[in-house]
């Protein structure tokens, strides 16, 4: 019993360390893929780490009207990502508190970071930041239901909403391709793209104020605060991509305690996240950003797929 607890502690710690590095590196990998397809060499995959190191040493600036919310938001964002990194089944099913981590709770802890960022943008008093946060609120309000319904469909299939058991159910089943599952995963994937501010919902590389959603909210951050936000956002991306790949292709995740299975789990996770990240990049290069008023149609589509998935999960049970 005691050694199980020790091993789940080690698994959580290993996942945390993995997440801290994997976030910026995934960002670098996605930029690299994009550059190569555009016919450029592009920055090194490790460039985001250099950027973070330099930003951390810069001066912290603060708009004159900002309150404590502005200073707290980057910390909340990073803290929420780190908590989920330690407690979600990314590399191993046996992490700390794995029997209590409910999938709905995971989504809401994730939402905590988004809301903190949204409030911090309003707090600056800048016109653009306010516009960015109202757009982010609109996208977020339509992404969450799609995510929740997709999760509900998968929970119905597995008979549990516990995240570790949900992934475990995927490991156990021999048929991964039921209609309910595929519909739910497509819906989940669109919601992940929207939640992490990727194309076609938001353009992470934009400099045009009128097309900004996420970027508009962080225009006032500088130095260490900006480093925390970039870092936190990249960890959220990896977290969601990791959860998606574990729900879609659970193979390789450590189902037993021990150093070997944990190592294999981390390796499998790295591979899966890299493949999905490259896939997202390829998808982004070939897609144009949607007009803001078309975004609800996409997200409503994702929600609809989720609902269909729930119906087929109930009907086929």
């Amino acid at each position, binding site marked *: 019993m005691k050694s199980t607890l020790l091993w789940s502690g080690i698994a959580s710690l290993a996942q945390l360390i993995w997440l801290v590095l994997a976030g910026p590196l995934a960002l670098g990998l996605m930029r690299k893929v994009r550059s190569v397809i555009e016919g*450029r060499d592009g920055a090194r995959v490790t460039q985001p780490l250099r950027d973070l190191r330099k930003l951390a040493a810069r001066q912290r600036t603060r708009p004159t009207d900002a309150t404590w919310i502005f200073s707290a938001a980057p910390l909340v964002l990073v803290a929420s990502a780190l908590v989920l990194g330690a407690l979600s089944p990314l590399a191993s099913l046996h992490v700390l508190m794995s029997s209590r981590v409910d999938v709905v709770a995971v989504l809401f802890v994730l939402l905590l970071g988004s809301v903190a960022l949204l409030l911090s943008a309003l707090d600056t008093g800048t016109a653009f930041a306010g516009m960015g946060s109202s757009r982010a609120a609109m996208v977020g309000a339509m992404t969450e239901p799609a995510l929740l319904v997709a999760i509900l469909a998968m929970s119905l299939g597995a008979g549990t909403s516990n995240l570790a058991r949900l992934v475990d159910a995927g490991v156990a089943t021999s048929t991964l391709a039921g209609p309910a599952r595929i519909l739910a995963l497509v819906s989940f994937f669109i919601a992940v793209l929207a939640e992490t501010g990727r194309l076609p919902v938001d353009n992470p590389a934009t400099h045009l104020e009128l097309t*900004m959603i996420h970027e508009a909210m962080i225009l006032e951050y500088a130095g260490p605060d900006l480093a925390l936000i970039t870092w936190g956002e990249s960890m959220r991306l990896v977290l969601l991509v990791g959860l998606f790949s574990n729900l879609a292709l659970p193979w390789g995740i450590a189902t037993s305690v021990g150093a070997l299975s944990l190592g294999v789990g981390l390796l499998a996770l790295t591979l899966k996240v890299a493949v999905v990240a490259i896939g997202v990049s390829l998808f982004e290069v070939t897609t144009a950003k949607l007009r803001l008023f078309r975004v609800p149609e996409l997200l409503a589509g994702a929600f609809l797929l989720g609902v269909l998935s729930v119906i087929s999960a109930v009907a086929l049970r």
Partner: protein
Amino acid sequence: MTFRIAVRALTRRSRDAEILAAPTTLHPSAARLHGSLQVRHVDAGSCNGCELELTSCFSPVYDVERFGARLVASPRHADAIIVSGPVTHNLHEPLRKTYDAMGEPRLVISLGDCAHDCGEFRGAYGVAGSVDDVLAVDAHVPGCPPHPTDIVRVLRSFTGQ
């Protein structure tokens, strides 16, 4: 499509030789930048010749991003502002505000002959002065318009990559 990309990647190499040569002189601040330079561009009244050349620095031909430089959307995010054109009366105040919005340590790069001595526009009624009259300039890229190779060289003297 893959074939076209491959052909372009191969033919591009010949033009690269001049750009790819490692930076010979480093700016003193290169050590603390750790190979990463975020740049905010400010057009203080340029004829847009410099802007065309600056844009092509980030194109597939010159691709300065591979050396660690990146354009950003806010002066708060930037290590350096790159200022082009003579400073007009209308842009004098916004230029100062942009500079004030940056966190320390901050760098100023002046782009093109106009930014240095007002060039063609010297003495014009709309011109307040050169960039040197308004801000302390850390590096200058000469030329009218400056060649992208020169811009890349100056940016690389900061990133050190």
